[in-house]
């Protein structure tokens, strides 16, 4: 019975700690909360999309592709040739979707959903086939600015397409006229 009392006391103490922490704690800057200093009209971010064509043509990695050690690791290393077939930098404004046409006719749609604290952003992406079924209906990513992620697998001309997607800070001198 004494042990039961001890356990109940511990549980009560834990409950009170939770209550105090949630009721009186300062509002924490959550990584998911929108940043009040978020830009409004002018794009301060851009999404960089490298479109690589992976094949086994025995030609190595295109010199225009910057250092990407991922391509030498499985499963990417199962292709010996990587050619840069497209490079796009698309300005991003919150909740304004942007599209990039891919070599296979599909469209990569990106949308900056939120600018988060500590240099993070939430990005939506999708790959659609105009007039056809979606290839990748939804991809939601929380990424630190400058960090890349990869979407791969689309068949294209005897190989596959590898999309390297990275949100970057937009240079101040960049013009919004380049919006696609």
């Amino acid at each position: 019975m004494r042990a039961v009392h001890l356990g109940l006391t511990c549980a009560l103490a834990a409950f009170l700690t939770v209550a105090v922490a949630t009721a009186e704690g300062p509002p924490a800057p959550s990584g998911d909360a929108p940043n009040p200093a978020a830009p409004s009209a002018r794009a301060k971010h851009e999404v960089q999309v490298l479109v690589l064509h992976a094949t086994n043509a025995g030609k190595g990695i295109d010199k225009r592709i910057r250092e990407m050690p991922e391509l030498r690791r499985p499963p990417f290393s199962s292709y010996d040739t990587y050619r840069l077939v497209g490079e796009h930098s698309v300005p991003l404004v919150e909740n304004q979707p942007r599209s990039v046409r891919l070599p296979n006719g599909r469209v990569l749609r990106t949308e900056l959903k939120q600018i988060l604290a500590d240099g993070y952003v939430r990005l939506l992406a999708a790959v659609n086939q105009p007039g056809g079924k979606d290839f990748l209906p939804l991809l939601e990513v929380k990424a630190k600015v400058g960090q890349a992620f990869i979407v791969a697998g689309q068949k294209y001309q005897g190989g596959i397409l590898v999309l390297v997607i990275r949100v970057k800070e937009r240079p101040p001198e960049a013009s919004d006229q380049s919006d696609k």
Partner: protein
Amino acid sequence: MQLYDSELAPEKELLLRRRVQTDAEWRGVFEGLRQAGDWVRLVALQRADAADGIADRVMQALDEGGAGAPVERGRSARSWLRSPAAAGAMLASAALAAAVALVVRSTDPQGGPPGPAARSAAAVAPSSRSEAPASARAEAAFADPLESAPAVAIEAVDFGARHGTIFMVGTGATSTPVVWVMDEPASSGGRMEPL
């Protein structure tokens, strides 16, 4: 193996048992499975005994620790631990304490942005991703080993009608998340086309 585990349909089991009786090779295989099973059971039993022995030795050492031992207040620690109510209460308080630690940590303003692990139940292995329903929302967290918060978190994926998988490609100091979609529609079971 299914025969040994009695997982076969009765008619199939009967058929195979006849085969085991008549075929020396099959009989040998079946006997091998039986011996392997016995061995596994024996090892499990020995390990359980060994674990019990450790507990006994620890408790004996505590009991022999003298009257000044903190666990002795008219009641031995062993009997105290044997009380189901006490054990349950301690487990409950331990679980609550863990919950408190999580809540306090997630509201800690110095803790940086909460990683996707706070939202998602768990990181999912690539193999299970590929077998998951295509329309299911998929969540996975990818941690940058150099930082406390993950650099990139795949928070949700809808693979639509296709199979797909999420995995990491490690490049030494950092890792890059990869969403790989199979460029073939998932087989949905024989769609009928008009002739």
